[in-house]
C-alpha cells in the first residue's frame, strides 16, 4: 500500500512527551551487550599487526614462525584477501585499508593478523611475524601534499581533468556556486580575506571497534559487531570475502558511540577471514591506540576565505578555497566542505573550490556533519570580521544576509521553508546575550548547516495477543531512536508508550536498511513505522469487522479503538486494540504491519550557537563559561533526546575547538594515540549547555520530522573561535585553540 509522506500538522497525544528511555536500565546496570560482549564456543582471539612506518614498501612478510607457534590457529596477510570485487576501485580501497597490499600507507596500517587460543599467544605470534619494510618518503600535511615535489601517496591517482600521465595527491577538485564573483567583489565597499587551519580529530567514541566473526566451511557466516550500519557491513564484507549476502548474518550490538566512525568496515573483514581460515569463531577487539591509529578520523584542513560587502551590510561576493586531506585513500570530504561552506547565506555571487588531498594518514571517515564544522569555522570567523569592519552587530549582519525560503543555496537548489532566520532571531532574544562580560572574557556566536537525508528503510510492526506491540527496525539506535520510534508506533496505534518494544533487527530479519548516518534514524524509520502501523490498522479494522459482523468500510480507527459508524451499528461497543488482538487466532492469525520505503525528502537544518569564554592571558587556558544551542529540529519526537543531541554535539565541538588534535612527528608517526594525550572534554570542562528547540516542520515527513543529530557540531568551532578572539583581542585562525596556540597568537600580535 502506498502512503503519502506529506506533513499533515496532526495533533499529537504522546509525540513530544519525555517518556523514560527503554535502554536506560540495561546500560546503567551493565546488562547491555556491546561489541566486545559476545562469546561463542571455541572462539579465538584475533589481533592485528600494524605498520610502524608512515609510508613503506612491504618487500616480504614471513609468517612461518608465527604459524608454528602452538595455539596459533590462523595467520593472514593480504594474500588471504584477494580481489573478489572485480577491481572495483572503491571496494579495493576498502580492502587495501583493511590490510596493506604491498605498501604500508600510514602509521598503523594493518599488515597481517593472527587468531590464537588466547591473547597472550596472539601477542607472541604478532612478534614472530617478520615484515621486511623499505621506508619511503612520506607527507602528512595537506598543504605540503599539494606541492609538486611531494611524495606521492597513491601512484594510480590522477586529478580529474588534469595531466593523465602525472601522479598527484589531489584526488578531486570540486566547485560550487553561482553569479559573477568579479562583479560582486567590484561592488563591495569592504573586502576581508583570511586563511585558516584545522587539525585532525577523532570522533572519540568511548567503545572501540569490536566484533565476533564466525564463518563455517559451508560458506555461511555470522558477525556480531558494533556498527552504525549492519546491512552495509554485510554488503561490504560479503563482497570483499566473496560470500553470498544472504549467507552472512550481521547483528548490531549496542553501540558506544559512532558519530560516523562506524559507518564502514575497518577490521571486520579481517576477523571474518581469520575465522574462515581457522574454522573457529574469532573475536577481534581493537585497543584505544589501534582505534586512533587504524580507524578513520576526520580531516585536517587549510582554508582561504574572501568576503566582500557593501556599507549597507549586504554581502556582495564570497569565495572559499578549501583543502581537505582524505588520509591515504580518495574521499569527498573537501567537496562536502565546499557544499556546506556558504549554505547559511543568501548570496548573489558565491564560489567554493575544494581540493581532496591524499596524505600518509589513516583513511578519513565521516564525523557528524562531515566536513561542515571546518568550513563553518573559516566562514563564520570571517563573517565576524566583516561585521566588525562595517560596525554592525554580528547577529544583525547575519540576519540581513541569512538564507530564507526561496534563496538559491550555494550548493545548487532553492530552499523551501528553513530555519536559519528563526535561530538567529532566537539568538538575539536569548538571555545569555544580556549577561555582562568580565575581564578576559569574550562572547561569540556562529551558524551552521547540515543537509540530513533519509534513504532505504524497512520496518515491521507485530501486535501480540495481549495487545502489546513489537517494532522491528533496521536502523541502529545511535542516539535514542528506540524511544522516539516507540512513541511514533504508540501514537499511530493509539496504545500506551509502555506497550511498545522496539528492537534493532539483524540482517536476516528485515530487508536492507541504509546505514544510520545523515541524521536519518528517526526521520526514515519513523516514516516506515508510521506506514507499517497504518497497514496494521487496516488489518485491525478488518478483524474488528469480523468480530462485529459488519462491513469493514463501516469500521473506523479512532483513539486506538475500532468503532463501527452508522446508526445501524449504534448498539455495538468499540473494540480496543487489545480486544482485537486477543481474538486474532480466531480471526485470521497474527496481526502485523510492514513497510519498506525510500525515505527521501529529509529537510535541511540550521543551528545558531552562543558561547561565552574566559581566557587566562598568562597560561592561554580557555574556560567555557556559558553555551547555548538553538536549532531547527522539525517536530521533536522525544525532546530529551533532541536536547541531548544538541548538547552532545556542542560538547564534541568544544573539545575539537580547544583541545583535540592528531599530532604527528617528523617520522610521520602519530604521537598521541590515547585519551591521556588526546584529551576530549570531561564533565568538569563543560558548563551546562542550554538548548532551545525550534520546531519548523519538514514538509516532507508526515510528522514534520527533520534530522537532528549532526547540525549542532557545525557552529561550535566558529562560535568558540569568535568568543576567544573577542576575549584576547586577536583573531584566532588555527583549531584547536590550545593554550600554546592562544599564547602564540597573543605574542605575535604584540
Amino acid at each position, binding site marked *: 500500500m502506498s502512503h503519502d509522506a506529506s506533513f499533515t500538522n496532526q495533533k499529537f497525544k504522546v509525540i513530544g512527551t519525555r517518556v523514560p528511555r527503554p535502554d536506560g536500565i540495561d546500560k546503567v546496570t551493565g546488562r547491555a551487550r556491546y561489541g566486545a560482549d559476545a562469546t561463542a564456543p571455541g572462539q579465538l582471539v584475533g589481533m592485528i599487526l600494524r605498520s610502524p612506518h608512515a609510508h613503506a614498501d612491504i618487500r616480504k612478510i614471513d609468517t612461518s614462525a608465527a604459524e608454528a607457534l602452538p595455539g596459533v590457529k590462523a595467520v593472514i596477510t593480504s594474500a588471504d584477501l584477494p580481489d573478489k570485487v572485480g577491481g572495483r576501485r572503491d571496494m579495493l580501497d576498502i580492502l587495501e585499508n583493511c590490510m596493506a597490499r604491498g605498501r604500508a600507507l600510514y602509521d598503523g596500517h594493518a599488515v597481517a593478523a593472527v587468531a590464537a587460543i588466547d591473547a597472550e599467544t596472539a601477542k607472541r605470534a604478532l612478534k614472530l611475524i617478520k615484515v621486511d619494510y623499505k621506508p619511503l618518503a612520506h607527507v602528512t600535511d595537506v598543504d605540503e601534499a599539494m606541492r609538486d615535489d611531494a611524495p606521492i601517496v597513491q601512484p594510480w591517482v590522477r586529478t580529474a581533468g588534469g595531466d593523465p600521465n602525472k601522479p598527484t595527491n589531489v584526488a578531486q577538485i*570540486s566547485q560550487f556556486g553561482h553569479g559573477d564573483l568579479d562583479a560582486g567583489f567590484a561592488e563591495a565597499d569592504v573586502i576581508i580575506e583570511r586563511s585558516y587551519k584545522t587539525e585532525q580529530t577523532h570522533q572519540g567514541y568511548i567503545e572501540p571497534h569490536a566484533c565476533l566473526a564466525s564463518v563455517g566451511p559451508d560458506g555461511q557466516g555470522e558477525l556480531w559487531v558494533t556498527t552504525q550500519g549492519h546491512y552495509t557491513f554485510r554488503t561490504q564484507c560479503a563482497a570483499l570475502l566473496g560470500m553470498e549476502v544472504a549467507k552472512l548474518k550481521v547483528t548490531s550490538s549496542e553501540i558506544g558511540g559512532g558519530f560516523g566512525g562506524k559507518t564502514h568496515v575497518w577490521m571486520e573483514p579481517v576477523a571474518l577471514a581469520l575465522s574462515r581460515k581457522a574454522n573457529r569463531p574469532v573475536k577481534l577487539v581493537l585497543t584505544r591506540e589501534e582505534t586512533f591509529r587504524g580507524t578513520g578520523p576526520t580531516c585536517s584542513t587549510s582554508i582561504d576565505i574572501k568576503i566582500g560587502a557593501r556599507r549597507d551590510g549586504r554581502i556582495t561576493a564570497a569565495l572559499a578555497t578549501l583543502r581537505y586531506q582524505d588520509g591515504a585513500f580518495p574521499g569527498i570530504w573537501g567537496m562536502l566542505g565546499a557544499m556546506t561552506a556558504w549554505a547559511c547565506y543568501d548570496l548573489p555571487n558565491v564560489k567554493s573550490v575544494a581540493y581532496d588531498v591524499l596524505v600518509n594518514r589513516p583513511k578519513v571517515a565521516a564525523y557528524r556533519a562531515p566536513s561542515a564544522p571546518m568550513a563553518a569555522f573559516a566562514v563564520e570567523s570571517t563573517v565576524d570580521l566583516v561585521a566588525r569592519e562595517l560596525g554592525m552587530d554580528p547577529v544583525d549582519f547575519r540576519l540581513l544576509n541569512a538564507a530564507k525560503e526561496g534563496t538559491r543555496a550555494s550548493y545548487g*537548489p*532553492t530552499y523551501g521553508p528553513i530555519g536559519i532566520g528563526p535561530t538567529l532571531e532566537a539568538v538575539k532574544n536569548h538571555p545569555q546575550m544580556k549577561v555582562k562580560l568580565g575581564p578576559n572574557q569574550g562572547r561569540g556566536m556562529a551558524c551552521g548547516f547540515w543537509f540530513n537525508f533519509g534513504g532505504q528503510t524497512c520496518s515491521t510492526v507485530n501486535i501480540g495477543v495481549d495487545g502489546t506491540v513489537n517494532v522491528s527496525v533496521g536502523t541502529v539506535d545511535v542516539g535514542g531512536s528506540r524511544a522516539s520510534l516507540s512513541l511514533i508506533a504508540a501514537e499511530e496505534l493509539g496504545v500506551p508508550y509502555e506497550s511498545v518494544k522496539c528492537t534493532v533487527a539483524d540482517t536476516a530479519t528485515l530487508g536492507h536498511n541504509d546505514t544510520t548516518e545523515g541524521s536519518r534514524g528517526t526521520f526514515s524509520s519513523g516514516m516506515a513505522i508510521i506506514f507499517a502501523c497504518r497497514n496494521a490498522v487496516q488489518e485491525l479494522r478488518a478483524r474488528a469487522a469480523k468480530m462485529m459482523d459488519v462491513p469493514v468500510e463501516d469500521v473506523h480507527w479512532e483513539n486506538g479503538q475500532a468503532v463501527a459508524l452508522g446508526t445501524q451499528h449504534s448498539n455495538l461497543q468499540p473494540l480496543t486494540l487489545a480486544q482485537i488482538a486477543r481474538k486474532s487466532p480466531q480471526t485470521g492469525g497474527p496481526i502485523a504491519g510492514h513497510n519498506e520505503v525510500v525515505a*527521501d525528502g529529509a529537510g535541511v537544518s540550521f543551528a545558531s550557537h552562543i558561547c561565552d569564554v574566559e581566557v587566562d592571558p598568562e597560561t592561554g587556558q580557555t574556560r567555557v563559561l556559558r553555551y547555548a544551542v538553538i536549532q531547527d529540529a522539525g517536530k521533536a519526537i522525544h525532546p530529551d533526546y533532541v536536547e541531548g543531541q544538541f548538547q552532545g554535539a556542542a560538547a564534541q565541538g568544544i573539545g575539537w575547538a580547544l583541545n583535540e588534535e592528531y599530532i604527528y612527528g617528523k617520522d610521520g608517526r602519530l604521537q598521541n594515540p590515547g585519551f591521556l594525550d588526546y584529551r576530549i572534554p570531561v564533565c568538569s570542562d563543560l558548563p551546562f549547555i542550554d538548548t532551545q528547540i525550534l520546531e519548523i516542520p519538514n514538509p516532507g515527513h508526515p510528522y514534520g520530522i527533520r534530522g537532528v543529530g549532526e547540525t549542532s557540531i557545525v557552529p561550535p568551532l566558529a562560535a568558540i573561535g569568535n568568543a576567544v578572539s573577542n576575549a584576547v583581542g586577536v583573531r584566532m585562525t588555527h583549531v584547536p585553540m590550545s593554550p600554546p596556540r592562544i599564547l602564540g597568537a597573543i605574542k605575535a600580535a604584540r
Partner: protein
Amino acid sequence: MKVALTGPIRDALGGLASIEIEADTIRELMQRLEDRYPALAPLLDAGIAVAINGEIFRDRWGEVIPRHAEVVLMPRIPGG
C-alpha cells in the same frame, strides 16, 4: 526542461552550468543522462542526487518531475 549541474557533475561536462533534457521521472532523467552523456557514467554508477524544487532525492527513481520544476543534479551526500 532545464537541469542545473553542480560540482563534479558540472566539471564532467566541461563546466556546463545546465543542460536541456526532457524527463517525467527521475528514472527517465537518469536513463537519458546515461544515453546522452557517457562522461557522466562513473558518477551515475557511483550514485548522484537530484533536487526537485529544493527537495533532495537520492534513490526514489519513481519520483515524478513536475512541469517547470527546478531540477538540480548534485553529488550524493554521506553523513556521520
